[in-house]
């Protein structure tokens, strides 16, 4: 179980190899890679700057990963999230989950990215032709996260 918060890019193939190397009990890995888009709300985006809350970010990501581990039988989970200035096409985030069976890998990966979007303290600022603007949170992200809330 690993969490990395970094400004540098990551190599998806190398991360996959590191996660699965020598662990022949893993039957499947699900990977989600988030990228910077060149359009948002009908406007072109030339760059994006990600700010975060050092300390709390790692803590929240570790808590989310621990929650996934409790809910699904995982062999491993990995979250890498970048901060700083990124350009369209750049990788922002990697979520990878490994399990003996695909269902646990798919579901836990989906859960992790949905929860991360509403709990991890990151904020995006986009550079557009009209200047820089902070990205607003979307209701659809709250709804996506809410579907993973366990009934009380």
């Amino acid at each position, binding site marked *: 179980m690993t969490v990395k918060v970094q400004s540098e890019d990551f190599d998806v193939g190398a991360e996959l190899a590191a996660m699965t190397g020598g662990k022949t009990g893993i039957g499947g890995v699900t990977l989600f890679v*988030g990228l910077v888009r060149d359009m948002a709300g009908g406007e072109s985006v030339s760059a994006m700057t*990600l*700010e*975060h*809350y050092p*300390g*709390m970010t790692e*803590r*929240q990501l570790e808590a989310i990963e621990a929650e996934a581990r409790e809910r699904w039988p995982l062999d491993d989970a990995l979250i890498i*999230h970048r901060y700083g200035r990124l350009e369209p096409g750049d990788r*922002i*985030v990697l979520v990878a989950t490994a399990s003996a069976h695909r269902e646990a890998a798919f579901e836990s990966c989906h859960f992790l*990215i949905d929860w*991360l*979007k*509403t*709990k*991890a*303290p*990151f*904020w*995006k*600022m986009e550079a557009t032709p009209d200047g820089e603007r*902070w*990205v*607003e*949170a979307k209701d659809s*992200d709250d709804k996506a996260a809410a579907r993973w809330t366990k009934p009380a």
Partner: protein
Amino acid sequence: MKILYFAWLRSKIGVATETVDLPAEVRDVGTLVEWLKTRSPKHADALANSTVVKVAVNQEHVPYDHPVGPGDEVALFPPVTGG
């Protein structure tokens, strides 16, 4: 108490962190936010709409009725937009 501001709250208020001495009436996040509004017109403007001001105490998300004390690290920020 140490207060941290992030994203547009930081740009509107003009500082990333400040250390404050709490008056007696501040007991929870809600009364803290109300008191912070009185510190300057910039604070009042940035904190005007509490539905977009989220709070973490000691790096955990908390609701407005969560208690706060002098030793806490309190962060105020807009809804998160990572991923």
